[in-house]
Each structure stands twice: as structure tokens, then as C-alpha cells.
């Protein structure tokens, strides 16, 4: 691995007017990607999926995150829990496919059974055939390894290292900023409201492109008709999140006079405002008065990222058959925007193999959100 160079990190941490972007190695070096799994993904609150994918008690999904096999499950009380997907006996992976547990999590190897809260319930034949106890098998100390988790805006966040600050502190600024949306019941639009992309770029380029509006008139000329560059503002919260907002969000009626219902109780700020924010490291959210979306970035390797995009609405009615065609059109419109971004994030990835590229020169005005993210990443390496 190219040795992490403190002066290069300091150059990233400098004020935006003077700063350089992250060096090429942050996008191209597999060893640095391995280090990033620890310092960036495990030590912070990272997104691993969505509550809507495990809607009922007992529903469970396996997830691999940063190379770690995890198991997400909704327990009897309706709470999402995350465990390392491994049996305490011989280390068998517990589940391979999404499933619904009727009562216990039974290991497929020797059938040790765990409660949905992780407690070890049964250890068949552990003391010999037909003898399910043994003095040296202390069930209390042999529950599943639970991972610290939190669900916010239906996003399942985990802190694998267990030592990050509380989620409510970590994301506190954003929870405050969007307090009008926080705590509202949200309704996923169903199968036609999920989009997936697999892109040939490092996950950070997807973050960087998402949080800036500088590219809109060039890459998304179609958005320009209702969302001109001068209607956008930068959002920068050092060491927390960054993104962009617009002042002219204006959902149109369709040909039959329908539109999606608004979230209840929003202040007038949201009549025409919409905001798009990357909560570091790997989740991006967009809020509007009548819908929000979440993008989960799954880093597959240093140069490959999967994006899961999920669209939510304000009421159950918006998710029924009567609105199905409207949801499909809405998802198609967003899909077009995200598809327009693919060539730039993949092109930036290719550009980072140019040895002379020095991280780039930020616009002190237009690139503050991007710099905020670089500053955060560089800071993880300084302290980690």
C-alpha cells in the first residue's frame, strides 16, 4: 500500500479555498479499501439495509457488510436487531437467504437454537445423546453476538466497533434539521419503488456526486426546467453531513389531476424546499413534502459499488394499486436522474488512475459539500 501520507491528509483538511481532494489511492488501492472498512465503516454508523425488508416479527435477512456476515431480524417486540451471522458453537453461518423464523433461530449444523433477541435457548445433545445440558455449557454466556444498531427513517444503521458516540449524537444535527420528518410513519412504495445500480466506481464518488449541485445544468439538463442552479443551496455540517437543497420543489399533478399526499404537519419551509443530504459514510437521503428516498451505498470492492434506492410516501393510500401507475412514473423519473449520474461517477473513477491527478482543485463556492465529505474521510484516518 502507498503509505498514508500525513501531508496529503493535511492538504485535504485545509480550508476549501486551499484544500486538495483525497489522493487517488483512496479510490484505487485495495489495501486502503481494507483499512477503510475498519476506520470508516466499522467505527462509525453505517447503513446496512432497510426496515421495510423485514416487516414482520421473525423476518430475517442475511447481509454482508464490509466483509462481515450479519443477520438482521425483527424480534417479537417489533424491534430490529442485528447480529453477527455466526453460531457460537462451531462458527457456522446461521442463515444464507432471507427467511421468517417462526420461533427460534436454529443453526443448520447441530441445531443450537437462539431466541430472536439472541439468547441461547437450546443445545441439543450437548452433554451426550439425549442430554441437552452440560456443566461447562453456560447458555447465558453463549448468546449471539449482537451488533449495535439503530433504525432512523427506516434505515438500519450499525456501529460494528461498538464505540462510536450514540446514534442520536452522531446524527443529531441532521435529526434536528429534519425533525419535522423524524418519527413520522413512512410507507415504502413497494416493488416498483426500489431501484438498484451497480456502478464501477469507489463508493466515495457516489457520495461526492450526490451532495453537490454544481453538475446539475450539465448532467441533468432536464432538471433545469424546474430546478435551476441558482435555486440550489449548499448544506455543510462539518464532521457530520453535507448536501444540497432546492427552494423550488413543486410536485406537478398528473394528467388525471392526482398527486402524492404531503406528510402531515410540515411547516411552510417545506412547501417548496427539498433537501438531499449524505450522512457519512454511506447513506444518502432526499426529503420532499410528499416523498423521501434513501440510497444505501454498498461498497463491494475498491472500484465497485452497489446502490439501493428506496422511495417512501406519506400514507398507506399512496402505496395502493390506485396510485401504482403514478409511483411507477415517479420511480422512472428518479431512475433517469440517477442513470444520468453513472457516467460521471464511473468517469471520475477512471480519472483516478491518472498518476498526475493530485486530488483536484475545489471551487471554493460550489464544492463546499464535497470538501466537507473529504474532510470527514481524511479525519477518520488522522484519528484512526
Amino acid at each position: 500500500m502507498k503509505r498514508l501520507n500525513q501531508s496529503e491528509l493535511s492538504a485535504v483538511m485545509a480550508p476549501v479555498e486551499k484544500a486538495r481532494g483525497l489522493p487517488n489511492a483512496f479510490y484505487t488501492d485495495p489495501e486502503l479499501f481494507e483499512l477503510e472498512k475498519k476506520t470508516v465503516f466499522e467505527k462509525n454508523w453505517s447503513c446496512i439495509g432497510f426496515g421495510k425488508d423485514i416487516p414482520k416479527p421473525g423476518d430475517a435477512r442475511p447481509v454482508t457488510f464490509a466483509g462481515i456476515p450479519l443477520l438482521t431480524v425483527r424480534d417479537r417486540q417489533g424491534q430490529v436487531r442485528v447480529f453477527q451471522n455466526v453460531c457460537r458453537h462451531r462458527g457456522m453461518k446461521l442463515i444464507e437467504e432471507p427467511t421468517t423464523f417462526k420461533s427460534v433461530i436454529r443453526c443448520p449444523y447441530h441445531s443450537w437454537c437462539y431466541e430472536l433477541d439472541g439468547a441461547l435457548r437450546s443445545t441439543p445433545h450437548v452433554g451426550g445423546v439425549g442430554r441437552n445440558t452440560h456443566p461447562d455449557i453456560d447458555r447465558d454466556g453463549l448468546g449471539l453476538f449482537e451488533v449495535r444498531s439503530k433504525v432512523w427513517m427506516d434505515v438500519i444503521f450499525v456501529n460494528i466497533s461498538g464505540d462510536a458516540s450514540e446514534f442520536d449524537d452522531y446524527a443529531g444535527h441532521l435529526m434536528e434539521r429534519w425533525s419535522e420528518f423524524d418519527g413520522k410513519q413512512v410507507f415504502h412504495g413497494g416493488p416498483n419503488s426500489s431501484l438498484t445500480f451497480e456502478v464501477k466506481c469507489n463508493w466515495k464518488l457516489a457520495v461526492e456526486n450526490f451532495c453537490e449541485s454544481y453538475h446539475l445544468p450539465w448532467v441533468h439538463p432536464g432538471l433545469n426546467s424546474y430546478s435551476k442552479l441558482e435555486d440550489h443551496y449548499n448544506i455543510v455540517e462539518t464532521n457530520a453531513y453535507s448536501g444540497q437543497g432546492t427552494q423550488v420543489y413543486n410536485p406537478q399533478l398528473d394528467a388525471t389531476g392526482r398527486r402524492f399526499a404531503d406528510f402531515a404537519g410540515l411547516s411552510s419551509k417545506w412547501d417548496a424546499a427539498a433537501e438531499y443530504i449524505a450522512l457519512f459514510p454511506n447513506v444518502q437521503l432526499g426529503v420532499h413534502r410528499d416523498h423521501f428516498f434513501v440510497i444505501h451505498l454498498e461498497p463491494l470492492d475498491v472500484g465497485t459499488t452497489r446502490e439501493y434506492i428506496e422511495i417512501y410516501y406519506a400514507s398507506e393510500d399512496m402505496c395502493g394499486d390506485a396510485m401504482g401507475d403514478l409511483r411507477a412514473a415517479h420511480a422512472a423519473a428518479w431512475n433517469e436522474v440517477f442513470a444520468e449520474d453513472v457516467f460521471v461517477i464511473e468517469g471520475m473513477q477512471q480519472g483516478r488512475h491518472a498518476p498526475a491527478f493530485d486530488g483536484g482543485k475545489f471551487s471554493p463556492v460550489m464544492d463546499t459539500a464535497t470538501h466537507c465529505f473529504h474532510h470527514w474521510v481524511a479525519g477518520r484516518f488522522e484519528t484512526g
Partner: protein
Amino acid sequence: MSGNGDLNMRILAGHASGDFAGLSDLYAEAGLNAEANGEIDRACFFFTQAYVFALDAGSTAAAADLRAKLVSYGREL
């Protein structure tokens, strides 16, 4: 004995089909047969199998009964 051979076949079929509630009942039946013959270790093997499959199937009442039986023989907590 032909009854046991048939039970054995049904247990194998239950494993193949993944019908765990049915499998639990079959193992419980095998356990009761062994218990009636005074073969307690063998019975507890079958009751354990029945208990685990009842847990898996979410057959709460059956699981509780089987657990109580195993506890009475000092085989379960």
C-alpha cells in the same frame, strides 16, 4: 416392529419435506414408544429431536410439553 419401520420411513420423509411440525410429532411418537419400552436414553434422544423441531416450527405448546418431559428426566433446563 413393522410399526417402527413405518415410523422410520415417515421420519425420513418428514426430513426430506421440511415439514418440521409434522417431524416433531413423529419424533415425539418415537420417543413415547421408546419410553414405553423403558429405553429412557433412546426416548430422550427422540424427545430432544421433537423439541428442537417444535421450536423451529413455532409449535409453542408442543415445545413446552416436550421440554417439560426432558426436564423431568434431567436432560434440559
